[in-house]
């Protein structure tokens, strides 16, 4: 796993709709940040392992998201495809600090290609 060089604050949890998601564009890719009905936050790279489907656009239920392109269901906790489907969406580190959502980014993601 790539290591995180920077925790970035992307604002209050209230900005993410419940049972929904927002995206964060990084230098290298897009991250989907989800909020479940129980107000927990999760993050995955915003592309499914099947056909690069934008997971942030899917229906969020329990701790799962259904990909909008072909209805594959992924665990928000592990990224694993559910049921009979294979594949794993890439997990992104995320944590809540005093109601603000912090996402762990790699050097590449924050544009520090040559750092350290």
């Amino acid at each position, binding site marked *: 796993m790539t290591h995180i060089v920077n925790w*970035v*604050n*992307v*604002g209050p949890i*209230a*900005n*993410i*709709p*419940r*049972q*929904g998601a*927002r*995206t*964060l*564009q990084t230098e290298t890719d*897009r991250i989907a*940040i989800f909020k479940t*009905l*129980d*107000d*927990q936050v999760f993050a995955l790279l915003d592309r499914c392992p099947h*056909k*690069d*489907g*934008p997971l942030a*656009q*899917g*229906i*969020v*239920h*329990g*701790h*799962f998201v*259904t990909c*909008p*392109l072909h*209805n594959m*269901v992924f*665990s*928000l*906790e*592990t990224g694993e495809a559910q049921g009979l489907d294979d594949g794993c969406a890439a997990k992104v580190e995320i944590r809540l600090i005093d109601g*603000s*959502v912090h996402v762990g980014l790699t050097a590449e993601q924050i544009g520090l290609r040559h750092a350290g």
Partner: protein
Amino acid sequence: MNHVPAALTKKPRLVVIGNGMAGMRTVEEILGRAPDKYEITVFGAEPRVNYNRIMLSPLLSGEKEFDDIVINTHEWYQENRIHLFSGDPVIKIDRDRKVVVSKSGSETAYDQLLLATGSDPIIIPVPGYKLSGVVTFRDVDDVDIMLKVAENGGPAVVIGGGLLGLEAAVGLQARGMTVTVLHLAGHVMERQLDPSAGYLLAQELGRRGIDVITEADTAEIIGTECVTGVRLKDGRMIPADLVVMAVGIRPNGRLGADAGLTVERGIVVDDVMTTSDPDVFAVGECVQHRGQCYGLVAPLFEMAKSCADHLAEIQTDGYAGSVTSTKLKVTGVDVFSAGDFSGGGETEEIVFRDAGRGVYKRIVLEDGKIKGAVLYGDTSDGGWYFQLIKDGQDVTELRDTLAFGQAFAGGAAGNPLDAVAALPDDAEICGCNGICKGTIVSAITEKGLTTLDEVKGHTKASASCGSCSGLVENLLAATLGGDYEVAAVKPICTCTDHDHDSVRRLIKAKDMKSMPAVMQELEWKSSDGCHICRPALNYYLLAAWPNEYADHGASRFINERVHANIQKDGTYSVVPRMWGGLTNPRELRAIADVADKFEIPTVKVTGGQRIDLLGVKKEDLPGVWADLNAAGMVSGHAYGKSLRTVKTCVGQEWCRFGTQMSLSMGVELEKMTWGSWMPHKFKMAVSGCPRNCAEATIKDFGIIATDGGWDLHVGGNGGIHLRGTELLCKVTTGDEVKEYCGAFIQLYREEARYLERTAPWIERIGLKHVQERVVDDAQNRVALFNRFIESQKTAQIDPWAERASKAVDAHEFKSLSLVAAE
């Protein structure tokens, strides 16, 4: 002046800061272990003896008096030779000189110091928070203020629908106030309860006359000197003579921090409650132990024991952290939760719902052990589950009957057939109709019944809400033995045993108007459904309560949520409506300009006679719509389970063969029906003569003009299963065309299953069924048509305009960005 001169005593001096529950419990525990070990001095900020803070709620509601909640009287302090200084809080700790300084200026020396400073209520600093009549709910003084205001009745607002807030609300209501609870989250007590239990609780509060507003964000507390009301960020005003802030607590580590102890969220302690200074200890809500802060009483007592062991120099394993459980202290409301019930990951959940009794139980398992539990309505087994959680006991053996509680554990086998067989004859099976097992069994044997429907017909068991149909089937199976095969009911999805038809029927029959209501009343097996059942329920609720139910965007597929069609690369396509396939130079120019301005790569003419702009970036959608709106165009709903297009030929307006004005008929029908949500997409066409250039015979509703009037066709489909329409009937006037069209659509909206096109629907129910309701029964036709027109009142709002100029769902179209570092 020194309160306890060191010279007077040889015993080590233990000074306790905080006369609350944690501090005094620790003192009691020390006295129990080593009564004469310490010379004890206690400082309390409140000018009274120590009382049971968790009993503030009954004190407020009037179920208890102050004397009832006192834990230790003045006599107790005297008997135990404890020096109590109440009302004189410590303001400073001097660790170098090992003295504490109180507000009155006195200094007291210590050998060992115990901090039990508790927590502070969080105050949201909205404008007006300092007005008279705004209180927290933390101590007896708060209760005194609340009681004084409550003497005059009037309205009260409680900000915060957590444990404490709801107890305050119930207490104030008992004292004669009209109470509104404002809660930021989507359901009350969201830290202790999952949404289903939260729904039940809100319902119960509603029955008691307490108004709960969820997702309520307070903007301002209104008033000049005294509070008069609360204004929410969405503009709503709620009058209030009293505002109680009960949004949470924060560990009070100030004294510790000022004295240079390690303080993070709380005062950091080890397993024997030692702070970063080996002579200073801390217990209770002010501490942070292994990263956790606690706001409940049970952990405080466990800390008190470990701390006392250590101070009494008894060998101890120390405090290992607590699994917590909570119970709402409101008479007549049984709510219990324990452990971690958030679910997900490797966990499994057992959900048990008994809608008739208002019972909900959810048990979260991991690796064969119970991790957490939420109980509502029947909490008698809460203690048992809590013990199983704390013991980490493997419950694999008990799994099948776990939801039924301790009484069933290890008893009758989990086999449901054996379970019904074991029931006595007078056991009630169908709660709705009061039908007992004996009645059903004798009906089965005497009348030779073999199916669920026959049992329903003869006994009425499971003929109402249907919740007991599983039990009835088990009874059939147990009675008939191998002769019975369970009928194939196809549930909507794995979240439920109900099929589409019974859900639709029950939504109306039981007057259910929200998704949590349906999930609870119909005993859903997951906590918030899935991508299959949620869109279906959203549609059924919308269709059942057209101008009442608030559409739930999070339960819609992305296309219907952002009103455009998602494409394989995550871009969207945009199709503006062209009424009856008609357009004009102005619209075409606007479309061309939009395509240029937003660099839209593909512009295509659709099969439904309109123009598709493909490859629009999501963030550009509102801009594209704004420009199209400016040219008079609205959403074409090319993305929706809704009316798509009305395809036309040029008809009598232009065609030398045309027999009727098919263009204008198409435009009128589209103006009448656009915006209507349906079980699936719905296409129409109007041909001006039987040559049928508009291909009306493969549409959901196809109209073919004849010399004498119009032929109305239904149930066509040009998709995977090509199906020609069937002739519904012939009519003569344009008004009749519209009435039949509206009535047919409404019948489809009310009867078809979600995601069922008209073709399979008609094949399932038969054309005759439709004709009986729409053609033969004129009164029913008019009623259907009127219901359709009524539902259209709130449906015909252009979703593009709302998003382009009114910022509806703005979060959908904007990515998050980094917050600048502080």
